[in-house]
Structures are given as structure tokens and as C-alpha cells.
């Protein structure tokens, strides 16, 4: 069995890549993809922990046993929200592109004094 830490390290690596992509890329689509990468890194953490606690019979702070599917359920929530966000985000991107004719975020800087 693959130990938990491996999943977590992979997740951290993915998350950091997402962060770096978000910070360093200028193309707004790439930035958007970096966000997805971060979300999925978190999802990986959720399922990894869910699997881990199922295998080891962990207890909640209240003393009850961890219900097997709670981690998985969160993943679905995240996916749903991500999908919604993608819809909104892409709409914004299209709107931006239509007005500014660019996808470079450094040129979308109207929100400053």
C-alpha cells in the first residue's frame, strides 16, 4: 500500500505548481488552468485522507468514528463548485477579451488608483 505521505507530497507539489503558474503566467487561460490544478491538488488530499482514515478507523474530535465517505463527498462538492466557477470565469474571460482584445492579465489593470 502506498503510504499517505506520498499522496500528500504529490498534492503539495501539484498545489505549488498551481500557485506558481497562477503567479507567473500572464495568459489568463493558463492562470485559470492553474486554479484548477490547485483545486485538484486539494481534492487529492481529501481522497487520500479519506482512504487513510477508512483504513485506520480514525475518530472525529467528538469521539465518533469517521464516516467512510465524507472525504469523497467533499471532492464532489469541490468539483461542482469548480465547474460553476469555470463557467463564470470563462464568461468573464470572454467579456474581457471582447473589450480589451487581450488575454494578458498585466494589461487588465483598471482596478487601481
Amino acid at each position, binding site marked *: 500500500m502506498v503510504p499517505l505521505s506520498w499522496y500528500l507530497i504529490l498534492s503539495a507539489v501539484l498545489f505549488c505548481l498551481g500557485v506558481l503558474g*497562477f*503567479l*507567473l503566467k*500572464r495568459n489568463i487561460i493558463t492562470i485559470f488552468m492553474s486554479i484548477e490544478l490547485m483545486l485538484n491538488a486539494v481534492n487529492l488530499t481529501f481522497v487520500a485522507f479519506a482512504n487513510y482514515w477508512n483504513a485506520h478507523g480514525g475518530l472525529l474530535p467528538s469521539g465518533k468514528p469517521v464516516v467512510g465517505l465524507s472525504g469523497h463527498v467533499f471532492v464532489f462538492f469541490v468539483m461542482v463548485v469548480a465547474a460553476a466557477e469555470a463557467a463564470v470565469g470563462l464568461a468573464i474571460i470572454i467579456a474581457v477579451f471582447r473589450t480589451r482584445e487581450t488575454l494578458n*492579465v498585466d494589461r487588465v*489593470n483598471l*482596478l*487601481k488608483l
Partner: protein
Amino acid sequence: MTENLHLWAIPLLPLAGAAINGLLGRHFKNAVVSTVALFFTAMSFGWAAWAVKSAWPGGNIALPHTETVGTWIWAGKFTVPFGFYLDQLSMIMVLVVTGVGFLIHIYSVGYMAHEGGYYRFFAYLNLFMFFMLTLVLANNYLLMFVGWEGVGLASYLLIGFFFLKDSAADAGKKAFIVNRIGDFAFLIGMFLIIQHWGSLNYDVVFNGVSQLSPEAGWGLLTAIALCLMFGAAGKSAQVPLYVWLPDAMEGPTPVSALIHAATMVTAGIYMIARSNAIFSRAPHALEVVAIIGCLTAIFAATMGMAQTDIKRVLAYSTVSQLGYMFLACGVAAYSAAIFHLMTHAFFKALLFLGAGSVIHAVGGEQDMRRMGGLRKLIPRTFWVVTIATIAIAGIPPFAGFFSKDEILGQVFASPHGGKILWAVGLLTAGLTSFYMFRLWFMTFFGELKLGSVDVGEEAHKASAPAHAAHDAASHAHGHADDQSHGHGGVHESPWIMIAPLMVLALFSIVGGWVGVPASMGGHNEIGNFLSPVMHASTTAKIVAVERGSEAAGHQTEEPKENSSEELMLAGTSVLVALIGFYFAWLLYYKRPELPDRITAKIHGIYLLVLHKYYVDEGYGQLIVKPLLALSTVVFWRGVDQGVIDGLVNGAGSASKGIGGELRRIQSGNIRSYAAWVAIGGAAVIAYMIWIGVAK
């Protein structure tokens, strides 16, 4: 508590008059305004007379009679009631205040008839009565202080009654501010009293004082007495705070009579007499009181000699007479002080009102050099002023003689007094007689320098001097309206002004007869009457540090062996008064060219006296100017502009600067925002890890 006299009504009745006239008087006719004012004042006088009669010693009301209508301040153990206190002392005061006040109200109806702001004048006058009666009827120092400040307010309002005239407005401010200096000392005195006896009620405090052992509390009592004395010096216009009173003559003449001669300025004397239990235990404070009184008396008398404005002569005379009362308090002769207060209220009110009548007659002229020969033109005024002049000069059997003689006798005999104080007092009596007869001769004898009787209004206006411009103008108007009287120029005042003068003249004659000393076959009723109030001092004095000091009421038992000495003293003071009269006669009647030659001879001294010893200028240079400079440089430019404005502006510019720097964060660059979010997130995580590690 035998019977309820509802003493609260005595001050509140004039307040009602003030409220009605002050709030609604604008819409009233003059006749309605004066009716309201006179009605409430008369009611107050009637009530006071009834209360005094009901509580007269020997009746079924025990004196002092206290009535409390409620609690004003209630903080822990410290309470201040709305309490009223009637004893022999407040009886005299309340009758003088309401009685003289009522007469002056009547007079004002005639005098102010042609002035603007008629309702305002009577509202203020009634307001003054309210505060003055609160002052004399209070049963604790704080309520007295309310009246004390209130009369100051009324005085301010009435001095500045002609507020369009700069000098009047300034005089009002001067009176208020100079009084404030004294009030400050009064407040400190009250704080000391609260600290040591936990109460401001007279009975508690005086009991507390009398229960102190003779040696104890000497410093404390002296401190309190000095503070109270300084407060009294402000209100009663004593050296060094007398400077406001002569300027207060800017007010209408009835105001000068009521407030700045008969009643308000005597509040300080009343306060000291009321606090006699404290003062008698503080011999050094008494000494200071006596010296201040003595200085004031002689100082003001000399200044009065050179004044040419009729009201200013009377003002300095008032200061001087108040000095006498202070002197009497200073030798623990409180009864004599109150006696003189009472007679002075009569004859000085009469003098002022008479002067007002003269001013009225000559169309607002106040300069005596332009008067003269008025004896024949305004005979009734002449006669009443003559009576008052004789009374103040101290010639028997007029009122002033007995009270002044009482004071001088006490000063001579009392262990607190002495020959020097007595000699100065005697000299002052001579000077008083001189400047009063000087006024009398200059005003009523010789030639009228305004022009002859036939001179019409225009000449009056033309000859009106600049400094009396307002009064002159307003009175000249009065004349124009009065043409129907038919005498053209100088004319006698209407009866509504003369009648109160006659009543006052009567009291100026007989007012002194209540205090005829035993040496002249009298019984000194007023001394005996007041002795219960001054009793505290009698008992205290017996055990006082200074052995052998005489009781305040000692005049009752002592004079038998000293009667010849007393008669001699009285004879001396009459002689001095006559000498004063002689010189006034010589200089201002017989040989009117002499004064000019004399003043030319002693030009330096004359100028010094004429300019009132440059005291105002000295105060200006020594106190006002440095204070102004200090305020300008340190408090305004330094503290206000530097520190306070600096703090406010600094806070503003600091946040502006910080904001300006922080603004750079908002670059509009989405990636820098993201970086801040990332850094923040990292910081939160780092903190959580650190917390976990710390556990």
C-alpha cells in the same frame, strides 16, 4: 420647626416677574412691563416683611429658622439642600434688598421711560432681585454662591445694558472678569470647608468651627477666612479688586443705585458677617480684612476727590464706604458693618437716584463742571440729595453718623483695631465729607454752565460731551418728548422718580436711630438685635487664642465706663466732617478759582489722583499685558496651535502618509494581488504550524 413661612417664595416671585417680562415683554406695552415688574417685586417685599414679622425674635418661631424645600446635590454623604435660612442678619438683608429694590423699581419706571429695551431692563432687574434674595436667604454656602454668581450675571447684563456702546460692553466684561478672580478664591474656600466638615450648611460648619479646640484649626480657619475674604473683596470692590466698580457706572443710573451701591456690592460684607464664626477664630485673617478695608476706604476717598463725573464720584464713595464696612468686619464689629451696610443702602441709593434725577434734568450731562445752580431749578431733588449728603458725611442725627461713628468707635476700642486704623478711618470720614459737599456745591450752587435755563434742546445736544454721548442722546430724546412739561431745558423729574427719593430720604434721616449708642442715650437696638447671629463669635472669642479680645456684641455691656470717650470720638468725627464741609465750601463755593490754583501747585499729585493712581494702567501693564502675551505665545501659539492643532493635524497627515504608501500595494496588477494572497496564506499556515509545534 414651628411654622412654615414659605421663604422660597421671596426669591421666586421676582424670578416669575423676570420670566414673564423676559420671555413675553417684547410684546407688552411699557405700562404692562412695569406693572408686572413692580407687582412681583412688591409681592416679594410684602412676603419678606410678613416673614420677618412672623419670625420676629421672641415669637413662637425659633431663630435661626431653616426651611428646606428639597435636595439639590446628593453625592454620597455630601448633600446640598435647597434650604433657606432666616435669622436676624438675613432679616435685615432681605428687607433692605426688597425694600430698596422696590423703591428703585418705581424710580426706574420714570427714569427708563424713554430708553429702548424697557422690558429687557425690568427683566434683568427682577432677575437680579431673584439672585440677590437667593444669596441672602440661602442656608448653605453653595446656594449662596449661586446667588453670588447670579448677581454677577445680572450686574454684567445691566452694566452692559447700552450694549451698542463699546465702553458699556467693556465695563460689563471687566466687572465680570474681575469678579471671577474673587469667586475663584471663594470656591477654594468652599472646597476647604467641604473637605473638613463635609457640608456647606451654615449650622454644620459653624458648629464644627465652635467645637474645634482653641489651638486647633488655626491654619485651616485662617486659610478659609482669607479665601472667603478675597471672594468678598471681589464682590464688594475692595483693594485690589475694586477697579471694576467705577467702570460699572456705564450702566443706567438706577442700576448703579441698586446693584453697585445698595445691594450687590454689599454681598461680600454680608458673607463675612455670615461667616463671623470662622473669621473670629482667624485673627490674622481679620487683620488682613481690616487693613484691606482701611486701604480701600482712604484710597477710594482720595480718588473720589478729583473725579468730575457725578456718578464716578459716587462710585468711589461707594468703594470707600464698602471699605468702612470691611474695616468694621476686620475688627470683628460685624454688627456695626451690617448697620452701616443698611444706612449706606439708604443714603447711597438716594444719592445715586438723586444723581440720576440731576442727570435726567440736565439732559444726560454727567460732568459736574458743567452743572451748577441747580438748587432753584430742581428743588425737590436738591433737598433729597442734601439729606443724603449730610447723611453720608456723618453729621448727626442723620443715619450715616450713627453707623460711621459705631464703626470708628469699634475700630478705636477693639483689640483687633488700633489707633492707626482709627486715624485713617477718621481721615477718610473727612475726605468723604469733602468730596460729597464738593459734589453738592458743584451741582447745586454757582452758575449753570450748560447755558441758561432758556437754552433749548439744540444747545443741550451740542454741549453734550463725547463720553456721555449715549445717555445724553437718549435723554435729549426724552426731553423732546417731555416738551409738554413746558420748562424747556432743565426740569424737575416726574413724581414717580421723586416719590421713592423721598422715602429713601426719610430712611436716610431715621435709619440710623435704630443704632443710637448707649453713650448718647440710645440702646443700640441693631447691635442687640444682631448679637445672636454674632453669638458664635462671642463664645469663640472667649476661648480664642488672643485673650481679652472683645466680643462682637460687646457694645451692649462695655460703653458705660467708656461713654465719655465714645462721645469724644463721635465729636471728633463730627468735627472732621465739618472740616471737610468747610474746605468744600471754601474751594467750591466761596472761592471757586482756588481749586485750579491748588491743582496747578500740586500738579503731579493732582494728575496721579485724577488718573486714579494709574491703577488701571498698572494692572494693564503688570497683569493683563503679560497674561495676554503668555496666552498668545504659550497657550495660543504654543499649546493650542502647536500641541493641540499639531496633534489633530499630525493624526491627519500621518494617516494620509501611511495611506499614500499603502496605496502602492493596489497596483491593479492581478498577479501581485495573488502574490499577497499567497503570502498571506503561507503566513497563516506557518502560524498554525508554529502553534502546533508550540503545543
